């Protein structure tokens, strides 16, 4: 198994701020026209009371690094993504974020020996309440594995 000794290890937590301009740029990049992401007045009148961030916005955050874990710079494949929210993410939120390598396992398939890495990322607000959790499955192909081992 790849990075077996790192399973269960976490990064040091990093503070991230949901900034208005970053949300606007992100909403433009994903071509999402919702006024709730960019129009302060519309957002202020909405039940959120302030600007909302798109559901995939936590992709932009810094989650720190697991000490010593060096992933290959290229060739990793994103297999699955999941995000779960306790509450919507809003502009102005300050979140303490970190990531954990939750699991690593191998499977042999049509495309040879594949490695699977499961990462969990979380964001907590200033009171320590969990706001979101993401789970990503990253696939390491045999060719990429050759460069690691």
């Amino acid at each position: 198994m790849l990075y077996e000794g790192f399973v269960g290890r976490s990064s040091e937590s990093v503070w991230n701020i949901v900034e208005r301009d970053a949300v606007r740029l992100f909403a433009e990049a994903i071509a999402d026209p919702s006024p709730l992401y960019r129009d302060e007045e519309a957002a202020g009148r909405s039940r959120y009371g302030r600007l909302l961030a798109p559901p995939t916005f936590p992709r932009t955050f810094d989650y720190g690094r697991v000490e010593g874990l060096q992933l290959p710079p290229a060739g990793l494949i994103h297999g699955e993504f999941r995000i779960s929210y306790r509450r919507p993410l809003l502009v102005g939120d300050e979140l303490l974020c970190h990531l954990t390598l939750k699991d690593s396992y191998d499977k042999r398939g049509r495309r040879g020996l594949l490695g699977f890495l499961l990462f969990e990322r979380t964001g907590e607000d200033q009171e320590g309440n969990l706001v979101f959790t993401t789970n990503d499955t990253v696939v390491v192909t045999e060719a990429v594995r050759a460069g690691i081992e």
Partner: protein
Amino acid sequence: MVAPPDWKVGDGLEERTPPPINRDQLRKYAEASGDPNPIHLSDEAAETAGLPGVIAHGMLTVATMGLLLSPYLEHGHVKTFRSRFSGMVFLGDRLRVGGRVTGVDQTAEGRLYTFEVYARRDGDTVASGGIEFLVPHGADGLQP
């Protein structure tokens, strides 16, 4: 602004076909998301990685599926969103995203709608997944 949703199991979300993937969008997404991976920006880097050309970010496809519920954000928000990637998306690809309601549940927080969603290029599914969308009590004007 759209009317508050009152979906039933089996209802379909209107399919959307955003413009074909182009370099400018990938550059914008790379900048906005902070993803520096050159396989999304440079033909040379993509070829070195054994790809026939530049590919789109998987998370851009997820965000495109997210457009399906964007018109309803006034009334509710995304609780969970999951996606499994089953194909690569290349420059010039025109994606078609859609979904349908698979569950409507009354919860302590409000009405929770479950959707199956997909992103397809012609007949190929490049991503499929699910969204749980919560319409809090009182936000839909419906009786619990």
